[in-house]
Each structure stands twice: as C-alpha cells, then as structure tokens.
C-alpha cells in the first residue's frame, strides 16, 4: 500500500509541476503541451535500452553449465537405482 502511495504522490507532484509550467510561460506553449507524452515515450525508450544493455552483458557461465549437467546425470543414476524413473524425455 505504501508503495502505491509513493508512486501516486510522485505522479501528483509531476502533474503539479506541469500545470505550474503551463501557468508561468517560461517555455513556449506548444512545447509545454507536448511534455507529458514526451516523458512517457522517453521512459519507454529508457526501459527498452536497459533491457537491451542487460541482454548484451548477460553471462553464460560455461563451467557452471558443465557442472550442472554432471550433477543432473549423477542424480538421475542415483534415483534410477532407487527405483524412481525421472527420465521422462
């Protein structure tokens, strides 16, 4: 519940800032009207960028993969000896 309240208060603050910018004409009017959509689009772009950067730097750990395969083979052999059939492929 508190997290929702935090996000809501942030939204209210940003919209207050936008309305304040509308009243005091520091930036030209046409730009101020377009600001919310610009921020939403840039937020989506930022999320996509973070996903792309994370994908690019994702580690694969080949040694751990090998150890894992060995563990799986060992576990299958152990369980098959006890009578449990886990080779369902």
């Amino acid at each position, binding site marked *: 519940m508190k997290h929702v309240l935090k996000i809501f208060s942030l939204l209210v603050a940003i919209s207050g800032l936008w309305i304040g910018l509308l009243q005091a004409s520091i930036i030209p009017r046409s730009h101020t009207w377009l600001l919310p959509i610009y921020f939403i689009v840039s937020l989506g772009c930022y999320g996509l960028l973070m996903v792309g950067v994370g994908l*690019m730097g*994702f580690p694969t750990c080949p040694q751990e993969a090998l150890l894992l395969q060995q563990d799986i083979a060992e576990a299958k052999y152990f369980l098959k000896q006890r009578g449990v059939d886990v080779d369902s492929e």
Partner: protein
Amino acid sequence: MELADRAVGFLLSFISLSIFTYYTFWVIIVPFVDSDNFIHKYFLPQEYAILIPVCAGVVLLCLLCMFVGFVMLKSKKKKA
C-alpha cells in the same frame, strides 16, 4: 547462443536510441527552425508526433487486455 543474445540486445538498444533521438528532434527542435528549412522534409507533420504514441499506447493496452482475458478463459476451461 550468447552471440544471438548479444545481437538481439544490440538491436533493441539501437532501436530505442534511434526512436529517442528522432522523437526528441521532432518534438523539441523542429518547431524552432524556420518553415522553409530542408529539415522539415525528414519529419512528418507535428500532429503525428502526438497521434503515433497515443495510438501505439492504445494498441498496447488492447493487446494486454486481450492477453489477460485469453489466459483467464483458458484457465477457466481447464478447471471445468
């Protein structure tokens, strides 16, 4: 395997950066240049700068609702 991951990641970040720069130019810089500059050839009329994100957002919302409804129907059919 990891080369495909790196290629997809690079493609995603490239698309996002290009969309960001194009949209920044469109919304912020193009209204300030003169009406008969050459740069206006490369950018669509300014109404589309609002129309395209709103349409994309509406389509995304529709797809999301359809997906949620589809999953709910499938789970209900499996239980019955």
